[in-house]
C-alpha cells in the first residue's frame, strides 16, 4: 500500500439550498496523479476548496499527511483554480513575487526561483510587462509558475490546459509529470478525458454530490471491459457469421480491404473459443480487445447514476 498524502472522510457540504458534497471519502496516494472527474456542478470545486481550506466542510474530516487539515498546511499545497486571473495593472514579476510571498516564501528565495522558471519557459522579457499586455495563454503560464513556485507537496490543478495551444499543453503536461517524478502529488480536475488517460494513476468520479466511482485507472478500465473484441479478417461477413455460434456481432465495418467486426462474447466465453470457431470460415488478420475509454466510462457511470 502506498503512503497517502490526503484523505477525506465522509465530507458533507451543504449550501443554503443544495447539497454540494454528500459523504465523500477519497484517499490520494503520495507521488501519484489523482484525477477528480465529474460533470459540471457535481461538487468537484467544493471538494477542492475544502482541500485548500477556502471553505470548511459541514461534517467529515480531511487529513493532510495523516494530520487533520489546518492552516499550517496551506503553504504545502499549491492550487491552480479553474476561474483564475491576475491583477491586470500589476507588473508580471512584481505580482509573481507578491503571490509567492503570500504562500510563505522568502522574497530572496522567491526571486531566485522565479528567475529559474522564467528562464526555463523563456519568458524573461515579460518580467516588467503589465499583465494586461499578455495573451491569455501567457497569463496561464505565469499562473502555473506561481502555483508550483513554493514547491508544494500537493498540487491541485483545475483545468490546467484551458487556454493553451497544443505546444504549450505538451510543455505543461511534461512539467506536471516532472513534478510527480520529483515527489509531488497531483490532484487533477478536468473535462479533457484524453489527458486523464495520459496522466492519471487513480481517478474518482463525482456526480450529483456523491462519489460514484473510485479506483486505479487501470483497474477501472479493466473492470469496465465488456468482453468485446475487434477482429480484422479476410472473407465475407456471411462466412464469419457461420462461425459466431450466438456471439453478438455489434458492428460491421471495412477498412483498407479488410473487413472488421466488433464482437461481444457471451459471458464466460474466452477469446480462444471464438477464434477456434471462426478460423475455419475466415482468415483472421488481427484481433484486439476493446478497452473502454475513460470518456465512455464517464458517460456510462453518470447515466447509470441518473437512473438511481
Amino acid at each position, binding site marked *: 500500500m502506498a503512503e497517502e498524502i490526503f484523505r477525506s472522510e465522509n465530507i458533507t457540504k451543504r449550501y443554503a439550498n443544495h447539497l454540494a458534497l454528500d459523504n465523500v471519502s477519497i484517499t490520494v496516494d503520495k507521488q501519484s496523479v489523482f484525477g477528480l472527474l465529474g460533470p459540471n456542478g457535481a461538487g468537484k470545486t467544493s471538494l477542492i*476548496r475544502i482541500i*485548500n481550506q477556502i471553505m470548511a466542510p459541514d461534517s467529515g474530516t480531511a487529513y493532510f499527511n495523516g494530520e487533520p487539515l489546518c492552516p499550517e498546511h496551506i503553504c504545502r499545497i499549491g492550487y491552480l483554480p479553474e*476561474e483564475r486571473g*491576475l491583477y491586470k495593472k*500589476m507588473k508580471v514579476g512584481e505580482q509573481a513575487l507578491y503571490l509567492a510571498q*503570500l504562500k510563505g516564501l522568502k522574497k530572496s528565495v522567491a526571486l531566485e526561483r522565479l528567475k529559474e522558471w522564467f528562464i526555463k519557459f523563456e519568458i524573461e522579457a515579460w518580467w516588467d510587462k503589465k499583465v494586461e499586455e499578455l495573451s491569455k495563454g501567457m497569463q496561464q503560464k505565469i499562473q502555473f509558475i506561481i502555483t508550483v513556485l513554493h514547491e508544494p507537496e500537493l498540487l491541485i490543478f483545475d483545468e490546467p490546459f484551458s487556454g493553451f495551444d497544443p505546444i504549450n499543453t505538451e510543455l505543461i503536461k511534461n512539467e506536471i509529470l516532472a513534478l510527480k517524478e520529483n515527489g509531488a502529488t497531483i490532484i487533477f480536475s478536468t473535462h479533457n478525458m484524453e489527458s486523464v488517460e495520459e496522466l492519471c494513476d487513480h481517478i474518482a468520479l463525482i456526480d450529483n454530490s456523491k462519489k460514484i466511482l473510485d479506483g486505479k485507472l487501470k483497474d477501472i478500465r479493466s473492470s469496465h471491459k465488456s468482453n468485446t473484441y475487434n477482429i480484422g479478417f479476410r472473407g465475407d461477413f456471411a462466412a464469419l457469421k457461420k462461425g459466431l455460434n450466438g456471439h453478438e456481432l455489434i458492428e460491421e465495418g471495412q477498412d483498407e480491404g479488410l473487413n472488421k467486426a466488433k464482437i461481444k462474447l457471451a459471458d464466460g466465453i474466452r477469446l480462444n473459443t471464438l477464434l477456434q470457431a471462426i478460423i475455419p470460415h475466415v482468415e483472421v488478420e488481427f484481433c484486439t480487445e476493446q478497452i473502454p475509454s475513460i470518456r465512455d466510462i464517464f458517460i456510462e457511470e453518470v447515466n447509470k447514476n441518473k437512473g438511481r
Partner: protein
Amino acid sequence: MGKISLIIQREYLTRVKKKSFLVLSLLGPLLIAGMMMLVIWMGMAENENQKLIVVDDLNPAFAMLKSKSTRNVKFVYTDMSLDSAKAKLLESDFTGVLYLPKNILNAKAAQLFFKKHPSSFVLRSIEKKVEGIVESLNLVQFGIDREDFYKVKSTVTLHPVLFSKSGEEEDLSKEKAYVGFAFGLVIYMFIFLYGVQVMRGVIEEKTSRIVEIIISSVKPFQLMMGKIVGVALVGLTQIAIWVALTFGIMAIGQSVIYESNFGVDKVAEQMTPEMAKKVEAANAFNTKALIDEDNIIFMINWPIMIGWFLFFFLGGYLLYSALFAAIGSAVDSETDTQQFMLPVTMPLVFAYVMSVFIIENPEGPAAFWLSIVPLTSPIVMMVRVAMGNVPIWEMLLSSVLLIAAFVFTVWLSGRIYRTGILMYGKKVSYREIWKWLWY
C-alpha cells in the same frame, strides 16, 4: 500577521504609485485654495456697473443723489415722468430706473426697475444711500436734531459670553463650529472617496478572478482587512500632503489678497458722515472678526481636535469601508452596486446635511443623538468637539459605540465577503446576502 502586512503593502504601494494619486495630491490643494481665493476675490471685486435714471416725485428732494454716484453706481437725476424714464431705459445704456414716489418719506419704500438683476450687494448699497437721504429729510421735517437722533437711535448687539467655573470667556462657538464642520467635511469626503476605492479594489479582484488564488494562501478576512488598512494609509498620506500643500498655497495667496485689500478705504471718502460711521463700525467689526479668527486658531485645542479627528476619521472609515467591501464582494461589476450603495451612503449624506444645521444649534437633541449614533457620529461629533465642552461621558459613549459598530460591520462584512467573492455571474439580492451571513 506577516501576510496581512504584505497585503497592506501591496494595496498601499500600488495606489500611491499611480499617476492619479499624484495628480489628485497636487491638484486637490490647488483646487481648494483656488476656490477659497476665488470666493474672497469675488466678494471684493464688484465689477457690476449700474447707471440709473432717478425719477423723483418729491422733486428736487433727492438731487443730492447725483453726488453720491460711485465708480460702480451712477445716478442720473432727471425730471422725467416714470413712464418716459421707463421708455428711455429700454433704448439706452441705462441699467435701471430708480423711482422715488411722493409718499416716500412716510412709506419708506422706493422702486427699482431693472433690465438685468443687480446683485444684492449693489441693491443694498443703493438702499443705504436712499435711506440716508430719507432719514435726513425726515429729521428736518420733524424738527429733530441730528445729534439727538443718534442718541435715540439704537442698534443693540448681543455678545454671548460663556461663563463657567474657569471664568468668563467670549463665546466663539459659531466660529469654532465652522472649523469642526470643515473637519467633518474632510471625514465625509474621505469616507466616500476611499470607501469606494476599497469597493473597486474588491470588484477588481473578483472580476479578474485573482481572488481564488489569493484566498488559497490567506484567509478572506485577512485579504479584506489588508485592503481596508492599506487604503486607509493611502488616505492618511493624501491628507498629510493636502494639509502641507494647502497651508503653503494659502500662505502665498493670503499675502497677495491683503495687499490688494488696501484700496478699500478710498470709497469711504465719498460717504456722508453717518454712512462713514456705519462703514467704520462695520470695518471695526471686520477687523475684530479677523482678530477673533486668529484667536480661534489659538482657542481650539488642536492636539485634542486632531486626536479626535484621527479617531473619528479611522473609526468612520473602517465602519463604512467594511460595508463598501461587502458590497464589492456581492456584485460582479460596478454597475450592479447601486441597489446596495444607497442604504450605505444615505446615513453618510444625512450626517453631512444635518451637520450644517447642527452648527446653528450645537447643543440640541439632534446634535446629541447624531453625535452618538455611530453611522453619523464621525461627521457630526467633529462639529461639537471643535466647540469644546462636550461632556466626557458623551465622548466616551460615542467612541465606544463607534468602536463596537466598526467591529460589528467588519465582522458582518467579513461574512458576506468570504461567500461573495466566490460567487460569479449571479445577480445577488438582499435575501441572498442574508443567507450568506449564516453559512
